[in-house]
């Protein structure tokens, strides 16, 4: 079990390191304070996985460094009855001129393994890393994936009480990542504790038993991953709103058109999350706010959802729903598209257009690419893989007679 009891860390920022000494000698104040962590407490029990999420700069890395003992906290204490290892950075203390075997010894010892342990586990480590003959080659000849494999293999075989999983794991290829995850699950099932630090909210929901959300060095919420992720979305959207206020035009890319009417803003809100990070299957509302600068009849409003590769995932407009709006000069209108968002986890953008007739080719008033972005993290209801949910009905029956085979139902 690991427990952190009100850990605080304050960095004093100096213009030059020598100022720290001047301060001691002359008793002046030559620094500005930066509070990285503020009474952070949590426990991770045996066999438990704790997720740590937070934006960049929320204090995740500092927390990890304090956990591993690389940095000393200003207050509070860490209680660990054993080793804590992880991939904090690839190949800690690896010497790229030396071969894999020598590096296993050095790295293992740095992690606190004894010669005896190393001798026992060497074969296992090499075997798991799947380096084969490369083990006798200098590490500089390795690919980054191979270095990662070696580093992971040493770290997990060092018999830690707690294993820290972070983004470094994503260097490996899909096959090895899965192998790692399997190993990590085994480790957990055997009573190991895991601290999982990631931006992948989906993974946090799937893998963790509990999670904490760090924001500006504080634990904002601790609880089941679902709640914590939702809170995280809220924190992010708060920042987005600040961003939005400083920008008059809708965010993002290309925008063009005759501008007789204009798209003022496009926003997606999930009914459960209340933000633009939603779960697959959640009902969402996409609000398109528009305004015309003269009276226009029969305006069509459309939206188009694209994935990160720019592929069109889904698009529709009011014309296809036999709707249109007659816009009055200077009156704001809002067009709302409400739907269950049955698309797979990932990041998406919304493009929106207002035009006449069925497509913007006829007469385009305004078209905005990437007017809004959102993320689908996690899945409501039955699990599925892929880019969309097709909601199959499934029946299983035993097939008795040969004549049934063609259509037993």
């Amino acid at each position: 079990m690991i427990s952190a009891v009100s850990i605080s860390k304050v960095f004093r920022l100096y213009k030059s390191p020598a100022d720290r000494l001047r301060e001691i000698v002359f008793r002046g104040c030559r620094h500005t304070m930066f509070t990285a962590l503020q009474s952070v407490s949590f426990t991770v029990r045996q066999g438990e996985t704790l997720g740590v999420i937070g934006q960049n700069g929320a204090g995740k890395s500092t927390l990890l460094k304090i956990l591993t003992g690389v940095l000393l906290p200003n207050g509070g204490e860490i209680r660990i009855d054993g080793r804590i290892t992880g991939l904090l950075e690839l190949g800690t203390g690896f010497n790229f001129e030396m071969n894999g075997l020598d590096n296993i010894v050095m790295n293992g010892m740095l992690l606190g393994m004894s010669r005896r342990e190393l001798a026992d586990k060497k074969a296992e480590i090499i075997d798991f890393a799947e380096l084969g003959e490369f083990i006798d080659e200098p590490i500089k000849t390795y690919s980054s994936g191979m270095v990662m494999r070696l580093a992971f293999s040493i770290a997990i075989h060092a018999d830690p009480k707690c294993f820290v999983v972070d983004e470094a794991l994503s260097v490996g290829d899909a096959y090895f990542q899965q192998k790692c995850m399997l190993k990590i699950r085994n480790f957990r099932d055997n009573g190991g504790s895991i601290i999982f630090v990631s931006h992948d909210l989906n993974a946090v929901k799937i893998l963790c038993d509990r999670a904490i959300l760090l924001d500006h060095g504080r634990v904002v919420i601790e609880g089941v991953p679902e709640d914590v992720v939702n809170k995280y979305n809220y924190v992010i959207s708060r920042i987005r709103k600040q961003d939005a206020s400083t920008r008059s035009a809708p965010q993002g890319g290309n925008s063009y058109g005759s501008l007789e009417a204009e798209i003022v803003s496009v926003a997606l809100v999930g009914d459960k999350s209340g933000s633009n990070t939603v779960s697959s299957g959640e009902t969402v509302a996409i609000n398109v706010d528009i305004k015309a600068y003269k009276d226009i009849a029969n305006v069509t409003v459309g939206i188009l959802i694209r994935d990160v590769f720019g592929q069109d995932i889904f698009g529709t407009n009011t014309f296809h729903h036999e709707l249109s709006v007659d816009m009055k000069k200077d009156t704001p209108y809002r067009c709302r598209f409400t739907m269950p968002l049955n698309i797979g986890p990932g990041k998406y953008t919304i493009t929106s257009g207002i035009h006449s007739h069925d497509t913007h080719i006829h007469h385009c008033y305004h078209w905005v690419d990437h007017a809004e972005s959102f993320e689908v993290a996690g899945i409501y209801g039955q699990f599925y893989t892929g880019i969309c949910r097709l909601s199959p009905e499934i029946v299983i029956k035993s097939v008795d007679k040969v004549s049934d085979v063609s259509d037993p139902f």
Partner: protein
Amino acid sequence: MKISLLMELARRDFTEKYSGSALGALWSLLWPMVNIFIYTIVFGKIMSSRLEGVSIPYGYSVYLIAGIVPWTAFANTVSRSATVFTDRKNIISKVKIALPFFPLFIVISESVTFVFTMLLFFCILLVTGNPITGKIFYLPLIYLAQQLFAYALGFFIAIFQVFIRDLKEVTNITLQVWFWFTPIVYVYNILPDFAEKFVRYNPAYLFVKAYHDIFVFDAVPSPRHLIVLTALGFSILFGAHLLFKKLERDVRDFL
């Protein structure tokens, strides 16, 4: 903490520098070897330098080597310890290791070189017809006192070096000046009076003199000198320890 890790770090210290080269760690032993041969041949044979009042064969060479070998161990320990935290930043900022370890592995690796060079020196003594007396049993004592002093000094500077990077150069220059202020190349007697008094307060003189006593003058090293040196070593170490207690957090933050 763990001896095995310390030994591994020291071993690495030897092999890493020359990894990829055919002779590997042998290179670090070749250097002192070449130096010793140069001193013996050039000063003993070609220049036939003599020491006043010393009648042993190759007198000046023996004098020179007896002083230079321990000095090299001392100076290398200090100068390499001084920068060890910044040099090993990549390890210190990733893994939890007690920081006082780092100057310690340098002491060990320098000791290996020292022992090897000393053995070589013994061979030279035998070949040139110098007797090796029982007084060499004082060697470990002198060496321990000397390296305690070197470790303490190196550790002390190393802490400051994290904050003031210039200390690396300052240390090297100081060591260079210090070398010439210590009777290693020249003899104590040739110094003018005022300098003689000055040299007596030189801690390096305390141990260099002891080596000279053993190898050149066939005398028992002064116990007073060794006690002073050890006391000095311990007091600096104590100071370094206090400093470290106060600054460890900052040292780690800055790395």
